[in-house]
């Protein structure tokens, strides 16, 4: 097992180098660069900037250097000094921008993941063991609706309802008076009052799909002979179902735990933009639009690291959970 983890960790290094280079290149592929985007933005607000100033900016940011040099400057700082570079747009270190938002992102995403699982697994099991019952059909309708309605639309509708009928202040995670206030009990209560919309939106979308997955897995497993064996042993239905087919049907969930990690970090970008959440997703979107390559690149690099680690965690969990994989 230790050798397996070590080998996988070593393999991750070339993967990450490759991803970081590719993403750095792709961010810069669109015509123009950060200065072009910046100048265009200034023009829109009526300010003017001379060609000389533009060239100076490029020189200052090192945008004239060959791409390999820019890449090396960026990546060597990360590896040697742990610095992710400087966001051109925000005029601030990338790390401070990202880590600021990371806490809230992780909180929202992990809570919504837990809620998703708490809904999806029991409902999926119920739907499979009571196939074609009234509630199975009910949850099927719910599942397809949840899957079919885009998250951002659900977010908009919920916001409108909360605002129009319940007179709640929606959008963002804090009321204005708490925005920059230090943490206090009142601020936490305020946070919770705002948090339910993103949680509902993210959990329904996720649960809807997972219910279908769980139901299909369970139906496959329930027909297998080992389930009949368990019944023939005299176990009660609930013992049979939860000890045998559910154990096997959970495998696909466990193998996707790893993807949850990068998903936690990026969050649901569109929903976050609609709900004006101070999470990492909208930050990445903005960075990409502005070709703020150090911010965007660092972002994608961190995502990749999370993906690689997440996959590794999944593999280890799966090996621990399913003996057939352990000995293969």
């Amino acid at each position, binding site marked *: 097992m230790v050798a397996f983890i070590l080998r996988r960790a070593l393999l991750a290094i070339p993967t990450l180098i490759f991803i970081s280079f590719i993403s750095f290149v792709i961010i810069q592929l669109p015509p123009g660069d950060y200065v072009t985007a910046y100048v265009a933005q200034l023009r829109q607000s009526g300010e003017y900037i001379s060609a000389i100033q533009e060239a100076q900016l490029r020189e200052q940011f090192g945008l004239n250097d060959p791409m390999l040099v820019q890449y090396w400057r960026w990546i060597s700082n990360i590896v040697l000094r742990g610095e992710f570079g400087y966001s051109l747009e925000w005029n601030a270190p990338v790390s401070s921008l990202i880590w600021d938002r990371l806490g809230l992102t992780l909180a929202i995403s992990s809570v919504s993941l837990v809620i998703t699982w708490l809904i999806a697994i029991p409902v999926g099991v119920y739907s499979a063991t009571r196939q074609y019952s009234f509630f199975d059909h009910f949850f099927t309708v719910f599942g397809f609706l949840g899957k079919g309605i885009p998250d951002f639309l659900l977010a908009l509708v919920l916001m409108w309802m909360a605002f129009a009928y319940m007179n709640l202040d929606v959008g963002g995670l804090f009321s204005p008076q708490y925005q920059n206030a230090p943490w206090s009990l009142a601020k936490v209560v305020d946070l919770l009052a705002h948090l339910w919309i993103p949680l509902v939106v993210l959990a329904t979308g996720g649960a809807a799909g997972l219910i279908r997955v769980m139901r299909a897995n369970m139906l496959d497993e329930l027909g297998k002979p080992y389930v009949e064996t368990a*019944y023939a042993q*005299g176990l009660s239905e609930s013992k049979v179902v939860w000890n045998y087919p559910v154990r096997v049907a959970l495998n696909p969930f466990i193998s996707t735990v790893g993807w949850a990690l990068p998903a936690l970090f990026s969050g649901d970008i569109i929903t976050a933009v609609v709900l004006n959440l101070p999470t990492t997703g909208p930050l990445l979107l903005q960075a990409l639009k502005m070709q703020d390559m150090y911010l965007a690149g660092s972002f994608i690099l961190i995502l990749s690291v999370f993906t690689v680690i997440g996959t590794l965690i999944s593999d280890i969990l799966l090996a621990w959970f399913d003996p*057939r994989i352990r000995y293969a």
Partner: protein
Amino acid sequence: MGSKIMTKSPVPQNPMPAERLLELDDVHVHFPLREGLVKAVNGVSYHVDKGEVLGIVGESGSGKSITARAIMRLLPKRAAPPTGSIRFRPRTGEDFELSGLDRNSRAIRQVRGRHIGMIFQEPMTALSPVHTIGTQIMRTVQLHMGLGKVAARARAIDLLAKVQMPRPAQMVDAYPHQLSGGMRQRAMIALAISCDPSLLIADEPTTALDVTTEAQILELLKSLQSELGMAIIFITHNFGVVADIADRVSVMYLGRIVETASVDDIFYAPKHPYTQALLRSIPRLGVDQGRRLPTIPGMVPDPFSVPEGCAFNPRCGHAVAGLCEVRVPPEKRFGAQMSRCHIADQFVQEPANV
């Protein structure tokens, strides 16, 4: 379709003889499907005495496995509620009216695994892939015998030794995929006999195994049967296997038992044309070399259109026009032998040439 639920046939009130373990009387299992009603089990009666091995032979789809599942109350959910009476009296002496029990009732759960053990055709898939065989055996033992973890584990190791599993103390922690097919079936048998059942239902337990392993498993079942004194219902489509293990044999065709007899009578004095035809189609060493093996003409009819009268009449060489395709043959008894054939008497004088 839903209105076709049949009223329960009156339960015969005559008491079971003392040696009787299990008695089925006129058991029906029907499947109301979109394409029509499938009478998978269509009036099956048989009995098993204590310590006896009853072989049940039939082609795929003859209803032999479904009958076994009716005993265990483990029918597929799309089956209509089965009718007929199934009575069971294990060694402990209680009387169970299995036909009255619900699929998930507490009473049937006390019978399953404790008084009736069951082994299946595919040892590969019949054991949980994510639990060790020890865990699976321990769960049954803890459930029915009230043993603690340590005692249950000790019993699991004993049981594995009893089914001649090599290195039982290590194998108790093995997962099914680490075992060979024969070893898996041994583990399955250990699981089925873990609570000293009075009856073991073996549903084609050797079909998925190679011949050498099959012989070993049959030997094992025979020795366990005499050691533990349990009865066995041995379901198979292989006459050779039946000859090896059974005391009595029932032959099934399209949801009915067509003939029941002692194993000797089945092989040497069969009184149903279907049994006779089946026996003729077994290849034998040194006989009829260079000639085609006789087969039964025609095909097994599809389950939605079972022939009227005797279901075997279109394929039968002895069929009597105007009788066999009109009336269902009654159960004709010749001592301990039973044949469901209109002209069974004819085979008494001149034993069929088989």
